[in-house]
């Protein structure tokens, strides 16, 4: 998750944006809800506040939709990618805050894709490919480049393939005639439990999850 946020920033950086990526800093263990933030801007980014009003969210674990509202604070014409086999409208049914604007919500069965092309249940890179297809704010090439900086060998090629397949999936399935680069995307958050619903501090060994 944290890695995905940094790779997203890397892809944005490659695209000429000013970027900043910040994990939310938790003592949660593997499997707990985790949120990481990425900012793109064309001006220098100075602020250090966590993203409260995201322009876009990437939801890696669809079970979060049932426990929290990861779309909180978003505009109806915000952008969202959800890792699920459901259709965008099925997602909207259970999540009234999900972007209602046509073509702004993409669903992609990223788990299935990475199972096939990566062989491990880590859908981050596939979702970045889907995000590139949905918003155009990052290029698929830049995603591949970010993956190559982070991983090597089979893991890199599997992730790149997954990203490509997810990219194509969104292009093919969403029927988003109005997909295109949104102007002025500044905030992208991923896998976002709302602040109020962040897990209570765990009293124990102080360590952070290194995704």
């Amino acid at each position: 998750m944290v890695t995905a946020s940094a790779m997203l920033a890397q892809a944005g950086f490659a695209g000429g944006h000013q970027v900043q990526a910040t994990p939310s800093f938790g003592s949660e263990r593997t499997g707990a809800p985790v949120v990481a933030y990425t900012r793109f801007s064309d001006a220098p980014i100075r602020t250090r506040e966590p993203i409260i009003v995201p322009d876009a969210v990437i939801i890696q674990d669809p079970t979060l939709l049932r426990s929290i509202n990861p779309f909180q604070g978003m505009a109806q014409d915000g952008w969202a990618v959800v890792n699920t086999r459901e259709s965008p409208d099925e997602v909207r049914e259970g999540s009234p805050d999900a972007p209602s604007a046509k073509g702004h919500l993409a669903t992609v069965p990223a788990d299935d894709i990475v199972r096939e092309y990566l062989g491990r249940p880590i859908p981050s890179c596939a979702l970045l490919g889907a995000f590139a297809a949905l918003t155009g704010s990052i290029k698929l090439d830049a995603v591949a480049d970010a993956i190559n900086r982070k991983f090597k060998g089979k893991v890199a090629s599997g992730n790149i393939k997954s990203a490509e397949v997810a990219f194509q999936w969104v292009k093919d399935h969403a029927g988003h005639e109005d997909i295109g680069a949104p102007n002025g995307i500044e905030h992208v958050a991923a896998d976002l439990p709302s602040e109020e619903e962040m897990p209570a501090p765990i009293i124990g060994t102080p360590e952070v999850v290194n995704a």
Partner: protein
Amino acid sequence: MPELLEGSQSVARAVAMCRPDVVCAYPISPQTHIVEALAGMVRTGKLKHCDYINVESEYAAMSVSIGASAAGGRVYTATASQGLLYMTEAIYNASGLGLPIVMTVANRALGGPINIWNDQSDSLSQRDSGWLQLFAADNQEALDLHILAYRVAEELSVPVMVCMDGFVLTHASDVVEMPTQEQVDKFLPPFTPRQALSIEHPGSIGMMAGPEIFTETKYLAHRTMLSARGVIEKASSEFEAQFGRVAGQLVRPYGDTRADDAEHRPAQSDEIVVVAMGSVLGTLQAVLPVLRAEGINIQLLGIGSYRPFPNQRLVQAVGEAKRVVVIDRAIQLGIGGVLSDDVQRALGSKPVTVDSVVAGLGGRPITEASLEDVLRRAAKGELEDLTFMDLNQEVVGEAA
């Protein structure tokens, strides 16, 4: 060439470019990524002629650093929070022995209750330890300050803490400009210790000092600390000449753009001056244009050197302003903000009101909206002497 790097990675690379002989640390969040990276560089041979020592505690980390520095080595360690407290005895010893160790403090709250998130109570609790404390506002400064810190430490023969907000900076990926090894080598010559254990010239280090000499020892240490301001400023201007970037200003004025910073003028009597330290300076920079657009005359000053505290530079920069608002990421219980105390003392002779705003304790996010709100109130003179930003009145049982 600009690169996107996690704060910890860029600091680790900068430290490696300083060519330390010994790196010794005990893991504690949020310092871990820095020392992991350095351990990796030693193992792979990217950092040559360097020993990385895995120790059993922060107390040992500082003690190994003391031994290594006393033997004439350039030494690096890093810690945070409880770890800093655990090594406190050795921290005072390192400065007392005049050992130019450089240590990153990934600023984090002090328990209990245990809390792993950012505030600045840890290093501020060591303000009288005889260490210099340089504070980074962003990750570029964080990496630059490490290079500067060795230069200053070795010139003064005094240890330096480079303080960077834990997680907020250490774990954030930002675009930074890494220096070249050549540049660093030019700026930072090999370490020539003022005193060291030597088989050619045996001497005793760390002898007992009796009442007839102890006051003088402390007086000299005090004088060194006073002279540190000039040494930092000189190193800072040389740094700028070498690297083309500003690092190590005692007090940093922030204009609307980086270019404005240089043309800073002392504040006018109708201006409010905001003083802060660390990463909140970034968020404040985002907030100020909003307030200025509302007609609030406001200036922002960053404290780059907490120890030595830049009394004179602060007085100059505050100019004729009648109101100063200090954003403090630490608290002295029963007293108020820590930094605001230093600011108040520095401005003692001026007719100025100092509002202390305690914010962002234990990782509470400091939002632009809250800063805007508190500064609007300050402009109207509505702040009390001490304000707890975003305090949940219901939890503390003081709901209206």
